[in-house]
């Protein structure tokens, strides 16, 4: 039930309300080694990331697009055992700009 429920909720619609200053061509988070994700059984980042930046592709690869990132840090923490997320804050002034926070 959980997975279907996640698909029903349109998180893009939520993110659309937010203000971002995207640092084009300079994503602040990287997957260090794509093979580690391929071998990762759980791929928890693909449902825990609150901005759905991580997507599980059919061939077991995980793709990351940081444009909607809310800069919470969850992906880095949940990947602690693999340490496969290179996580930095965006350059000054870039990324999410909370209007209300």
């Amino acid at each position, binding site marked *: 039930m959980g997975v279907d*429920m996640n698909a*029903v909720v349109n*998180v893009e619609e939520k993110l659309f309300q937010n203000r971002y200053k995207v640092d084009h061509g300079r994503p602040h988070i990287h997957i260090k080694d794509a093979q580690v994700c391929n071998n990762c059984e759980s791929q928890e980042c693909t449902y825990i990331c609150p901005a759905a930046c991580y997507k599980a592709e059919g061939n077991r690869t995980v793709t990351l697009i940081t444009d909607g990132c809310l800069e919470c840090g*969850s992906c880095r923490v949940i990947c*602690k055992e693999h*340490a496969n997320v290179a996580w930095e804050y965006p350059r*000054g002034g870039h990324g999410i700009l909370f209007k209300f926070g």
Partner: protein
Amino acid sequence: MAEKFDAIVVGAGPSGNSAAYTLAKAGLKVLQIERGEYPGSKNVQGAILYSDALERIIPDFREDAPLERHIIEQRIWVLDDKSFVGTHYRSEDYDKPPYNRYTIIRAQFDKWFSSKVREAGALLICETTVEELLMDGNTVRGVRCDRIGGEVYADVVILADGVNSTLARKAGFHGELDAGNVALAVKEILFMPEETIRERFNVGEESGVVIEMMGTVTEGMVGTGFLYTNKDSLTIGVGCMLSDFKSNPNRTSPYTLLERLKKHPSIAPLIAGGEMKEYCAHLIPEGGFHAVPTVYGDGWLIVGDSGGFVNAAHREGSNLAMTTGRLAAETVIEAKAAGKDMTAKTLRAYKDKLDESFVMKDLHKYRDMPQVLHSSPQFFSAYPRLLNGAAKTLFTVEGVDKKTKEREIFGSFKAARRVSGLVGDAFKLWRAFR
């Protein structure tokens, strides 16, 4: 930027602003560095402001701080899928100044707080991310920013850089966060006419209500939901321990929980018609006493969420942030007045101040709480169902005698947890709270 400061404060949230304000007010030369476009643009909170902690820093804050509503009523709801059992505490005393706490909107509040910091004389630089600490052996000498020529030096660096504590981790002062020690919370802000809020929550023009919720909405994960009334908006959110998100067999996303909370039959009518204008997510350090790292060293101090200063049992964080920021600043001010170097030996006084304050006393009091809750998912699924079932049995009139109903209720509890389980759970909770 080659000049040297008495202190550099990294971050312009409640802890950083409290530290920078206190330092600048005492005449120290302070540089504060914030990565957001303006202070508050990277900050997320429910948000409740507890007056006391701010009053000790800016006594007359009520004169011009952007406050939404003072809270006159606290509701605690235990939800199952269709209903809730709740306690409400509302008092006329809470409707008389000076008010004890307020709802705030952090982007506005932090901007205001920052204006006070600058008035006090601190130099603020925004849109600048600190990349790392400049070390000389074990001693912090300054910071490197993501600007050209961005090396700045100071006698002491106060790390108010938030829950991810990036700088202290990079410097090796402490390790990566544990998923079992942080909660992931998501929330939305929903705008609606002020009159609608007054009618729905039975409040006046400036008074408000907070609702804290636990129950089946978190699928047995340790977590809570919340609904706060702002002036012309509501904030609704839900957060659960990150480790529980990881181990949840349903693999439920945080935004799915939020949608489910919004659709709950007891909540949907309260938020109906609200226009969603922002969606936020944030980690909350809820590991408590045992998760607080070393918070001082040669040339550095850690304050606020960066040091894990959150009392999860009482939903308090920003007041601990402000208090730790103030105490760190006072430590630096005293050391400077005494002409001492900012060594770990000198800055140990900060830890002593923390231990003497409500901050570490409260964290110590609830030190076992995270572990107890973590090992007791029944508090977040079985008990909410039992409690709501009991209420329904008790309050539904259907020609069944009350004695039979009581037996039915007790039977439902025994069947779910057995008597030994019930006694054990009560004992665990009592131990964790006492």
